[in-house]
């Protein structure tokens, strides 16, 4: 190889390869030694006690597909495909109880195992080793990053889905008499849940033709100003549908919050406990409850 001005290049540059050529060489090496490297990786995984939720056969099966995807990503630099693979893999292993640190851990272990094999292969050519690592390291880091992010995104998606399911299950609108609904609220109300509660209640009022609704918040520890306002709005919206709302079970803290935001208590019908609320509701609806005999 000669420079354009006619002098020749220093010896160390004479054998310089293109980065893509290096990458191809690297990928070829990883494919040739696939069985051995994969085995080594699985051993390291077991040694470090990762993926304890999975059996040895399962780990081996997943390791095979991860290894192949890893090498393919190195070769093609198609990181979107890798991300899709990572999410897909996550979808399978998250229900098995695999955690983020395990996924990041095994990908980094694979990176180390492959790096070590490169050290071994090019141990006699330090400069070439450096060039190979120049090609390998950024790609390997990007792969680790992509897989970790894919896993975390999938986890977040699952959590959101579960939260949605919990929200729906935990806001039952119950009819206990003709024209009387009870909405027992338990737990933490965030603005999103508060909104869902209101929508569910209003639909319930229309469907059941309710004239009185008892909203019991005994099970709610605290309420921020946004949610307290939402409660007021729920009462007002219910009235627009011709229903009266009785709120029961206000804790001292929540009573304080309502007073702080300046809720016009004349607008809100409140009773101490659920029993009192139901009794008042019955009165409003024209029921009289009479005891006919002692319980047996």
């Amino acid at each position, binding site marked *: 190889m000669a420079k354009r001005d006619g002098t020749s290049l220093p010896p160390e540059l004479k054998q310089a390869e293109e980065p893509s050529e290096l990458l191809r060489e690297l990928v070829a090496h990883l494919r040739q030694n696939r069985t051995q490297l994969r085995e080594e990786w699985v051993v390291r995984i077991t040694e470090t006690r990762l993926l304890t939720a999975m059996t040895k056969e399962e780990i081996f099966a997943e390791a095979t597909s991860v290894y192949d995807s890893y090498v393919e990503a190195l070769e093609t630099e198609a990181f979107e495909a890798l991300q899709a693979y990572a999410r897909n893999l996550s979808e399978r292993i998250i229900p098995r109880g695999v955690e983020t640190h395990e996924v990041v851990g095994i990908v980094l272990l694979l990176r180390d195992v492959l790096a070590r094999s490169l050290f071994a292969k090019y141990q006699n050519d330090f400069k070439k080793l450096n060039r190979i690592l120049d090609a390998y390291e950024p790609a390997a880091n990007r792969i680790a990053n992509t897989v970790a992010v894919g896993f975390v995104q999938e986890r977040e998606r699952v959590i959101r889905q579960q939260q949605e399911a919990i929200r729906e299950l935990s806001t039952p609108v119950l009819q206990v008499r003709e024209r009387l609904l009870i909405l027992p609220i338990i737990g933490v109300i965030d603005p999103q849940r508060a909104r869902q509660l*209101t*929508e569910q209640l*209003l*639909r319930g*009022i*229309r469907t059941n*033709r309710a*004239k009185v609704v008892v909203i019991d918040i005994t099970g709610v520890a605290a309420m921020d100003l946004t949610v307290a306002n939402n409660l007021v*709005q729920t009462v*007002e*919206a*219910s*009235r*627009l*549908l*011709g*229903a009266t709302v009785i709120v029961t079970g206000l804790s001292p803290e929540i009573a304080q919050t309502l007073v702080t935001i300046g809720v016009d208590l004349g607008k809100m019908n409140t009773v101490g406990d659920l029993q009192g609320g139901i009794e008042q509701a019955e009165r409003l609806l024209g029921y009289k409850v009479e005891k006919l005999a002692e319980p047996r």
Partner: protein
Amino acid sequence: MEVPILKQGAFLIATFQAALSDADLNQLRMGLVQQVVKLRSRAVIVDVTAMDVMDSFASRTLREIAHMIRLRGAETVIVGIQPEVAFAMVQLGLTLEGVATALDLEEGLAYLNEKFKTTN
């Protein structure tokens, strides 16, 4: 747009259509009160079931209608507000305060019958 106003005994029933312009609402306000006077009605039921949005002008007009009709000694009941509309309204602070409301026409009539039974 013409809003049908039906007579039901001592009551009037006005059924609002879906897309009422501000001009329509203004016309309605006068028209309803005139009918109350002419027919000596004791109450008006305004049915807004068909309205899928209620803006602040419509809301204010309804309150004004109720107020003007009360000055004639008659009662107004707004019926048929949809759940989604009710939610949107209260978020904008449009609560129709001081105006009677009921779930639908049937409930509105029941409310009025009950009310006039006790005041007679």
